């Protein structure tokens, strides 16, 4: 790594995450980034929306867990999903796997996103959606709440439905490989 400027746009953590200074990270103690994850400017990550716990209970809950080599493009929003269950409203943790790309302007409220998932720009992932590994979501897709997307799916439309299967090479194709490529693009 070349020596950083004292006040670069990105803060780099010990595990190699790069977080833009212009992003809005709330409740950072409830957020886990796996490493080598990049968070661009104007992203909003709502780690403060965590499970409501009875007073006195251990509140060390993780609201958002993001894996390695993820990329959150500009103006994307990660928000843990919430619902009223047995008369109490509570947020539920959001888990994101490795090699997940989130495009510009996406709003993600999924309960689970697997690994090797590509979400193109301007998508909305509804509350409690479950997206399995190796899924590609096309631009402008709106995935309804509670939807389950199985592996090797190409999803498109409003509401997002599986329109095609991805080939066996999907994992290689969707890898946010060339982290250097991404790094270079943001430097």
């Amino acid at each position: 790594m070349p020596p950083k400027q004292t006040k670069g746009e990105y803060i780099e953590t010990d595990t190699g995450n790069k977080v833009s200074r212009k992003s809005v990270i709330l409740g950072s103690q409830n957020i886990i980034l796996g490493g080598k994850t990049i968070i661009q400017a104007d992203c909003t990550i709502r780690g403060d929306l965590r499970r409501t716990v009875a007073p006195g209970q251990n509140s060390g809950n993780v609201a958002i867990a993001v894996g390695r080599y993820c990329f959150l493009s500009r103006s994307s929003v990660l928000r843990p999903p919430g619902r009223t269950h047995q008369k109490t409203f509570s947020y539920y943790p959001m888990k994101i796997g490795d090699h997940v790309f989130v495009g510009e302007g996406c709003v993600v409220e999924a309960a689970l996103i697997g690994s090797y998932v590509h979400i193109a720009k301007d998508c909305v992932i509804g509350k409690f959606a479950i997206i399995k590994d190796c899924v590609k979501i096309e631009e402008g897709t709106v995935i309804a709440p509670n939807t389950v997307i199985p592996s090797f799916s190409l999803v498109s439309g409003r509401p997002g439905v599986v329109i095609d299967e991805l080939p066996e090479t999907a994992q290689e194709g969707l890898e946010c490989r060339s982290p250097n490529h991404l790094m270079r693009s943001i430097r």
Partner: protein
Amino acid sequence: MVPPSATYRFPTVHISCPCDESIAITPKSPTKPGAPAVPEEDPDESEEETFDPRAPRSNFSLFPLDNLLYCEDCKQIRCPRCVHDEIVCFFCPNCLFEVPSSTVKTDGNRCTRNCFSCPICFASLVVAPTGEGQAGPYILLCNHCLWSSGEIGIEFEKPTSIAAQLAEKLKPPALARASSGSFTSPLSPMSASSEGYFPSTGAPTIITPDDEEDKRELSPEERFIGLKAHYAQQKAGAGADEYGSSPGALSRLMGLISGLGSGSRSRSFGRGIGGFSNIGGKGKVEWTEWDAVKGIGDDEEELVERIKEIGFAGTTNKEQRIAQNHQPRFIQDLRPLATILRTKRSKRCRACRHILVKPESKPTTIRFRIKLVAMNYIPALSISRLDPTTFNYSALTPLSTHQFLLTITNPLFDPINITLATPAKTPGSYPSTVTILCPTFEVGANTDVWDEALQTTANTPTAAIKKGRKTGMLIGTVWDLGRNWTTVVIELVPPLLPLPGELDEDGDELATEDDRLVQVPVSVRVVYETDLERDDGGLGKEAKEKREHTYWSVLGLGRISEKMPTTAVEDVAGPSAARPTSLVSIAGKGVAGRGGAREEAGESRANRHSVR
């Protein structure tokens, strides 16, 4: 790297699968591993003919590299057309439960748990309580368009086994006349599951021609049950394997089913059954004629009345209608759709039957036991623009020289020699002129994936040139090279096309939109030496084997602009601004490189010089 979101954005690289020429169905004698590889085709032969990307058949043989497989035994690319699929497992894409194939046979290819999709917008439905405090009754609710099963008057007592409850509610006899569109079980008409759900309506529903007098319209279920009972009866008489083995019986069966689909409202179906069931046992079946095409009957008048009442907004659209078994005309008649199961499939080479892809059978895992994909065997091509700034691939300026970078990446662990060949003029009525500046070069072996990455973080990309191995002396001909990739320059001069709207004598457009797409066929010939595979895994002497592979690829370089060339200077100025030193080296040695091009068009050179 092409952004994955772009499905059809320039530039595109497709690879032609040769399966339409060398009919893959004829099995080739499998070459023994260890024996020297025989090239699939005589190279001289294959090189003689230029692949024409505009030929009507080409559409079917061009695939992105990602979609291609590779058969190690045939040493050939395999496309989705020349592989066999075998189902490994069925699973529900919503609840991700695996469904045993025996259940699929009996219950049909739909989820029998709680998985339904919305009949309006096809999003998945959730079971939602309507009562106080999470209590029943329950409805199926669409979280996207807020349709609910309550709208069609269906509520459930308990939140589990919705499919069974729904089937119970849609039981035909009680409700058949309630609305003109009849009810359906959530299962496909091909399935045999209705028996469990409608035990009371068994064989008696077989319709005799007398029933035609009865005005009551049959629901698909009733028809289905009748059909099923009939077949059960016939099967009992004919012996169990009559249907399994006899092609005649099968075609009869299929004919009947398809006839049922197309004439779903025809009452004559009863007669068909009646005539059919007279002949029991093994006898051949005589077809009785169906009724003539029906005119507007009472029920159609009824429909017209209903449309008047409900209005256009209450009718279904094509997608909604087709998705349902009973093809309802009104939104009122739509039913929740049980989720269709999905499969995981293994793939076999059609020529030698070897398995190319075998996924693990668990629905949620993405691992493969066997995965022979072409991207691990044949070099990948990628295209980028020499001067990437302010350039629009979908508006190439005619008659000016465009320079593209063609990068060839080697997936093999041996260095490869590449020979590129392209016709000087692309096929089509408006040919573009193409020149590959360096048609023969070497690409390094694919070593450790992280080698390059670790190096390039510290160095600038141009430092890679210094690392060039044997090709170091050829610098200037290849544009750039790295660990396992080499980049060469391709020059393209698009023709000037007639403007859209210009017509010929016959009134046809002179240049269609298709003519504006620049598609360059490039033959890629790969020669390399590799360690000989051994059957015994023996130690022996280190034997090397020469292998060769040739394939055609088609580069979609862009779309020719309608605009007339205003200034041709921008194109030359661009690259020189980007990389001044390298451009000089190309300009200086370019001629030597071009001399090596297999097919050189004199006029293309003239053209280029005129532009500069």
